[in-house]
């Protein structure tokens, strides 16, 4: 069949490789000079970056204030634990719901916009929430933040595991990440994800073939906010605290840098690569110089200038070249054998 559609199996080699590398991390981390906590942080940021890229890469919606939803998740888990006695799973789901609710309100104000107006509005809303986090002392603890956020044990029926050690918490975070990863992989290839990508390419045409563009953009924002909140709740448990810092423009900028450097615009895997590169650069460059962000910023500028498709883009270009070379060799060989025959 000449028109066989491209299908996307649930489990693919890159997915297995990613999970295998992450799952084996506790075995080799220390021998390369890393430590368990950094792996926890990397996986959480990967989750956040994937959630963000649902908007930026797949939906073409430049959300530059996305730290807000990560932050709502972080504060929500603390408040749910301390005021409502939430445990692990219910606390995380509650945090995701809170972030989704906040995202739903914000998205209602911005989903008819695009491009630079969209970006500016997301920044404005992000700043509003950062300000609320600083000023609303009675709830957020102001600049002191929320302290003593626990890592409640994981309970499955009769069994229970403590997550207080960084290693056990890492396994838990990785399991949640794997679920989110498979879910998002499915989502971006589902009809909904493909419509979202069509809207990114041409909003007007999508409307004229009958799609409710606004509702698709709105729902993408809500989903992205929910997953960002989920990542935020893990982050607060990892840090045992939540500070206004998580909502800052800084954090919102970091996730954009991760997505772009990794190549989220051209590849599903971009945010995964980008988050790892970012946190590792922070730790490795940070060991040499306080000004690591300066060097990282220069790297970011170089990527945007010379390689806007990011690391994943370099990889894809290399594979294309190799494929083209192989095809050319194949044709050459066929031509030779034809002449000889």
């Amino acid at each position, binding site marked *: 069949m*000449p*028109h*066989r*559609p*491209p*299908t*996307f*199996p649930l489990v693919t080699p890159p997915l297995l490789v990613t999970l295998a590398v992450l799952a084996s991390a506790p075995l080799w981390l220390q021998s390369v000079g890393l430590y368990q906590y950094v792996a926890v942080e990397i996986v959480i940021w990967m989750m956040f970056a994937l959630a963000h890229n649902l908007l930026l890469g797949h939906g073409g919606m430049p959300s530059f204030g996305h730290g807000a939803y990560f932050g709502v998740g972080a504060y929500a888990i603390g408040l749910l634990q301390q005021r409502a006695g939430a445990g692990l799973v219910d606390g995380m789901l509650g945090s995701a719901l809170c972030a989704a609710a906040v995202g739903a309100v914000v998205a209602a104000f911005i989903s008819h916009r695009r491009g630079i107006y969209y970006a500016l509005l997301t920044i404005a809303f992000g700043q509003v929430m950062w300000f609320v986090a600083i000023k609303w002392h009675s709830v957020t603890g102001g600049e002191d933040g929320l302290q003593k956020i626990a890592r409640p044990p994981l309970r499955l029926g009769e069994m229970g595991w403590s997550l207080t050690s960084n290693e056990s918490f890492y396994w838990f975070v990785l399991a949640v990440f794997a679920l989110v990863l498979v879910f998002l992989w*499915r*989502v971006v*290839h*589902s*009809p*909904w*994800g*493909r*419509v979202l*990508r*069509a809207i990114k*390419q*041409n909003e*007007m*045409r*999508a*409307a*004229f*073939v*009958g*799609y*409710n*563009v606004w509702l*698709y953009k709105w729902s993408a924002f809500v989903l992205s906010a929910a997953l960002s909140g989920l990542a935020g709740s893990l982050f607060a448990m990892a840090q045992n605290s939540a500070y206004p810092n998580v909502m800052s423009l800084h954090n919102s900028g970091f996730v954009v840098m991760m997505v772009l450097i990794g190549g989220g615009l051209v590849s599903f895997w971009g945010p995964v690569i980008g988050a790892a590169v970012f946190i590792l650069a922070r730790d490795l460059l940070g060991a040499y110089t306080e000004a690591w962000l300066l060097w990282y910023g220069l790297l970011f500028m170089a990527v945007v200038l010379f390689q806007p498709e990011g690391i994943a883009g370099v990889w894809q270009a290399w594979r294309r070249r190799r494929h083209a070379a192989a095809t050319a060799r194949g044709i050459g060989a066929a031509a030779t054998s034809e002449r000889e025959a």
Partner: protein
Amino acid sequence: MALFEARRLHKRFGDQVVLEDVSLTVMHGELRGIMGPNGAGKTTCFNVLTGRYKPDRGQVMFDGEDITGLAPRQVARRGISRSFQIMSLFDEYTAIDNVVIALPCVRSRGWSMLRDLGRHASAYDEAATLLQRVGLAGKEHVPSRSLSYGERRALEIGVALAAQPLMLFLDEPTAGLGTEGTARLRELVESLKRHLAIVIIEHDMRFLFSLADRVSVIHWGQVIAEGTPTALRQNPWVQRSSLGGLSS
């Protein structure tokens, strides 16, 4: 009964009147042409008729229903489809994906988040058939931005047809096409004629007059003449105006 009826449409942008008292009736299966000089309001007229702009006054009826001021997606869902003068495709997507996204059966599953669209084989079969119909067989998996200009024009119509419309609006479909491309387009439009109502804005008079059942001439935002191509050739205004060169 007319399939489509626009009654006394008015539209102004600021103090500039772009449509004044425009009325248009299209019967089932009719092929209607719209001609007029540049800036006469033809494209604005299309935009009002297909829901992109709301008319200031007047009414648009389709299939017995008042569709005045409905959003483009609502107009599209009632069975009106259009192509664009400035090409408007999903550039990253392959030709077949452009069509697949526009199919009603995919649109109705648009909220499904967990199944793989690629496994929806019947949609891809349907899209492949449609691509064949507009002359793009063999180009299914070419990204639409890599298609030639003429192929992109054909895909524009393919995407519009994918929605299975009762009525199709084509905005300057021959723009930028050479003689060969225009000839191929004529074949395509002829094959569509009578299967659905078609309205074409066109500069190419020979193209339009050889295909259309009736033609409306728009100038200064008004319909200044209307009739069959034969009758219009006799119209003194049409003969006098720069549109006249039809005898050539």
